[in-house]
């Protein structure tokens, strides 16, 4: 039980665990970290596929099915609650937790979700071996893993109705970059709307933001800040149009797939230069 204003320490609940179960716990958490990183990677792939000329339907379906499998397993484990709320939004029934193909590729509101998790730090996770396969993820993604993992653990506390509260809090948290002064701010904001002690706001608020160094979180911020948000306009997504793309998303794609230079990436500079030409022509016509 958490009372207002108390900073919850990670070490709570860890006392008196025998060596054996500690090893077991580590294996289990390593597995769930790998699973989480796979989930993140898959979601990024689905988002990125809409930035290319025309997504390969087979590939998209396979990735979406993988995400669905992971979600099903996480629901089974009970670690899916928090992520569910993020994707489905308030008002959707639990049966809709299993995310459909198109939901995953939807517009801005959902795409902003990764930022939601970036603010939470998880000291314990960061120290562990995140993934067995070292080529799996870049540092920033693995930290997303750690971030979400923590949120997942305390997910049971999260009530649906607090989602909007979370989003408000998240903006505030982002702006001030994880200073530990956030706690009070959130607590006061959420105080009035709590239904029970276990509320989102309190969950966020009671975290001690450990290791507040900008490091990996800011790297993640950087990655997403370069993204041209016009991509996530629904119209843009539906028509598959690309405005003059910035290097951000392509950097991300490159960093994820270093050894695989896809032909579709090669074609985008041509597309880009054509669009630049078009812009140029438009400028002349408009006379600006």
């Amino acid at each position, binding site marked *: 039980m958490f009372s207002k204003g108390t900073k919850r320490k990670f070490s709570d609940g860890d006392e008196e665990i025998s060596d054996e179960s500690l090893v077991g716990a580590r294996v289990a958490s390593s597995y769930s970290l*790998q*699973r989480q990183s*796979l989930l993140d*990677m898959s979601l990024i792939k689905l988002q990125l596929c809409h930035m290319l*000329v*025309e997504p*390969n*339907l*087979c*590939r998209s*379906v*396979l990735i*979406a*099915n*993988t995400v*669905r*499998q*992971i979600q099903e397993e996480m629901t089974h484990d009970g670690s899916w609650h928090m992520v569910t709320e993020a994707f489905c939004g308030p008002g959707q029934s639990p049966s809709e937790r299993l995310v*459909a*193909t*198109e*939901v995953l590729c939807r517009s801005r509101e959902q795409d902003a979700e990764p930022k939601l998790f970036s603010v939470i730090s998880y000291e314990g996770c960061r120290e562990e071996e995140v*993934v*067995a*396969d070292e*080529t*799996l*993820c870049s540092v920033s993604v693995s930290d997303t893993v750690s971030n979400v993992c923590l949120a997942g653990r305390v997910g049971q506390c999260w009530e649906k109705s607090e989602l909007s509260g979370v989003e408000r809090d998240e903006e505030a948290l982002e702006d001030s970059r994880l200073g530990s002064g956030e706690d009070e701010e959130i607590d006061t904001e959420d105080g009035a709307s709590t239904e029970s002690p276990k509320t989102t706001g309190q969950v966020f608020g009671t975290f001690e933001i450990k290791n507040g160094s900008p490091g990996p979180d800011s790297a993640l911020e950087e990655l997403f800040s370069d993204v041209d948000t016009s991509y996530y306009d629904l119209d843009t997504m539906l*028509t*598959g*149009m690309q405005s003059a793309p910035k290097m951000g998303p392509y950097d991300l794609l490159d960093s*994820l*797939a*270093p*050894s*695989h*230079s*896809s*032909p579709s990436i090669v074609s985008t500079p041509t*597309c880009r230069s054509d669009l630049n030409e078009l812009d140029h022509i438009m400028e002349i016509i408009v006379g600006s």
Partner: protein
Amino acid sequence: AYASPTAAAVVLVCDTVQWCFLSILNNCLIFLPFGYAADIISTVEFNCSGELLATGDKGGRVVIFQREQESKNRLLSRGEYNVYSTFQSHEPEFDYLKSLEIEEKINKIRWLPQQNAAHFLLSANDKTIKLWKISERDKRAEGYNLKDEDGRLRDQFRITTLRVPVLMPMDLMVEASPRRIFANAHTYHINSISVNSDYETYLSADDLRINLWHLEITDRSFNIVDIKPANMEELTEVITAAECHPHQCNVFVYSSSKGTIRLCDMRAAALCDRHSKFFEEPEDPSSRSFFSEIISSISDVKFSHSGRYMMTRDYLSVKVWDLNMENRPVETYQVHEYLRSKLCSLYENDCIFDKFECCWNGSDSAIMTGSYNNFFRMFDRNTRRDITLEASRENSKPRAMLKPRKVCTGGKRKKDEISVDSLDFNKKILHTAWHPKENVIAVAATNNLYIFQDKIN
């Protein structure tokens, strides 16, 4: 027509046949005059006699090679393949409705059986199929007296004699002309085309639908399979390949991204959404992972020449199915099992989505498929032996024998072995073809085409 092989006729592929490097045809040499970089070969197909070999590339071009006539003077009685015809089959298009470019890349080429002096093939990109006629012209009519030397028609009263033009020989000219264009029938990307054994119809398959066409009719096609759900959000499975049965013109199969194959009989219903047979191997629960579905996705399906079996290629293996047995394949061959522990990185770099093709030899005694690092694998169905070969310039000299390659999967690496971590995943052999009658194979390695044949003893 296929005749079942007698014991004496069956060729033991791996032991007695020494694969020999015959020729290397590099797209660079052919297309460089235009200043373009070489293009990636996207499909390879022998015609029914094996005399012609067609390749399609990412730039929408088709290059056809023809086998040299065997010459009694040469020591080697088998001919080499030389360029016969080159033409631009598809151009890039722009779909204005979706604001998307339609790639000109040739996804598939299929030859029609030869019925006269000309050759016909179907070539398909993502959206459009074209029927091309390739014909030779080696004579020219000369002696017309109706025109002046500069080509202008002469006045009628100046023509005083009736002269019949004479056919004179000329340098051989090979012309390719588009005879039919089958367009606007596919919303999704075409992955397969297959000519029916009735030689009148053919099918084309995209991610969600299969259409049946008549070769003479371009303005309509019949939709025979449609797996598009009413709500696209419920989509979990796509069609990955389809093929007509080699002898029964009412039967075809299609494979899915979930590792299943459905055999359909067009006599049963106009819309073949309900299959006649359903082929699926039960999953091994001990090897289940999050990648299980992706690696079970079938990238190619091919009937044997006999029509009794079919072969499917998934990410790690090739399976041979008896059409009479639906619950499991009769043979399974591991192509590169050492990649199973690398699935996570292969997922990250997207290699796990690579679509490898597979092919039978003429007598159905052997099968071949590609792998990474420019390796390709051949399996002898009778002896159950397999061989790994490499298609690379460094290791290939004309008339030299190919050395078998081996991937070291663990422990101490022997000399000449290559370790899994040294494999180049950018060098993938997705497209291979086997001559319908002889032991000649064509292997496409990115933008290079290699042709190998067995050594004459």
